[in-house]
């Protein structure tokens, strides 16, 4: 859980949102180093699928455009290739910031329906329940999060791949692979969530 978001900026030079990002987003403390050179967007393999790209997104953060930032496709199409991060001449961990903005967008209810949020939900369910990613169940849960018909459609579209995976023993049939101490792991994750809630109440 994170400190509550500030209001959307209504006047010029309102740095409320930029400060919130600085204090609450992973890597955000380095955002002020950004000099808008565009190395990040130029290095991005998937910029064509983004409305803004990282450079513009960072400027929007400075401009206080909170809603536009959290609704931007830029935070959802990042493939975590880390080109921007290693190339940034100012040492801004661009990938970490983009990734965490995605988490915050989910936390503050901006997006519930985008693929990534559904995928992340299915992924975390598997990690928490079994302690491991069960690629079969996670994918099925993701597909069927779109509803029964769409789930079947997506499943059928990938049937050939699934058969190939089963045939080559890269997808097993049977019970999920579980860690021994699922209870211990779940206790750790619950405690971590509790600490998060406690710290965000304390304020940053």
């Amino acid at each position: 859980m994170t400190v509550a978001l500030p209001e959307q900026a209504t006047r010029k030079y309102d740095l409320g949102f930029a400060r919130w990002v600085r204090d609450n987003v992973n890597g955000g403390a380095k955002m002020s180093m950004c000099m808008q050179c565009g190395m990040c967007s130029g290095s991005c393999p998937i910029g064509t699928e983004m409305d803004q790209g990282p450079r513009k997104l960072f400027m929007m953060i400075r401009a206080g455009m909170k809603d536009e930032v959290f609704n931007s496709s830029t935070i959802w199409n990042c493939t975590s290739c880390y080109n921007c991060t290693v190339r940034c001449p100012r040492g801004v961990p661009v990938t970490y910031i983009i990734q965490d903005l995605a988490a915050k967008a989910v936390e503050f209810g901006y997006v519930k329906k985008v693929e990534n949020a559904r995928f992340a939900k299915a992924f975390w369910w598997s990690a928490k329940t079994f302690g491991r990613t069960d690629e079969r169940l996670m994918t099925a849960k993701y597909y069927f999060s779109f509803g029964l018909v769409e789930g079947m459609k997506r499943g059928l579209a990938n049937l050939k791949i699934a058969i190939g995976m089963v045939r080559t023993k890269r997808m097993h049939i049977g019970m999920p692979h579980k860690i021994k101490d699922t209870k211990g792991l779940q206790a750790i994750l619950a405690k971590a969530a509790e600490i998060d809630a406690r710290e965000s109440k304390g304020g940053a």
Partner: protein
Amino acid sequence: MSDTKKFTYYPGCSSLGSGAHLDRSIRAIAPKLGVELEELEDWNCCGASVGHIEGGQLANTSLSGRNLAHAQQQGPQDIVTGCAACYLNTHGAAEKIKSDVKLRENVNEALGAAGLKYDEDRRVRHVCEVIVNEVGLDKVREAVTNPLDGLKVAGYVGCQTVRPFAETEGGGEYDTFDDPQFLDDFIEACGAEAVEYDVKTACCGGSVSVMKPEKTLHLIKKILDAAVEADADVIATPCPLCQTNVEMYQDAINKKFGTDFNIPVVFYSQIMAVAFGMDGKKDAALDQNIIKATKLEAAAK
């Protein structure tokens, strides 16, 4: 072999699924390289590139914290993993915990819920980095009994094996972000030819390719196009997600772009197993590639 170095081995979730052939071939070649792998006790998921979205940053880091705590209990040896995402997350978490007192405190408070603690700084390494820095290419060459003359290989490194840690002190400084050489070196050490391959650190789309391939098929096409252009017999990669994405989407790419790709995509460790004269199935796990690497299979003992 006398000078064997022991590691705590973290196979990662893909080792039980889509990347089973990476795990199998790594375990096969390790003894030939003087590396002893002891599996990490009750290891869990690393969180990959999406764990933080639903779980939050601290819970996600605590996943790695639990693995680090188990490694600490297990012995003083470094952790090693063959999976790019496991490496990124576990190494990244260890480095962050090392430099952030508050985070260490929080992670340990969470770990305390299961009676665990992590109060040291454990080195987390990638198998490729270990081969470069600990084993050395000479030892790889020495292990080759079945040189792969005439096999043309496109060395596709991908992203997270070298980014963001390859050029950092903690990452072992084993290669560069943009133009890594280690994979071509492995290929050549095995007697095969590493073809010119400009897109070696291009992105396969990662998990975005899994959830919405319509956005990323063009990225994978680039990787395939360059391999065909270089006349490669096979693409070799260290990353389990790269291997799966580049292999399994060839049909979809052919449908979308009217191409006719059918290029095998294997792991460097499968190539090494064959070059080390090991069994093509049991050790090199070539039976686990959906697109059969026929030339490599033919070369296998």
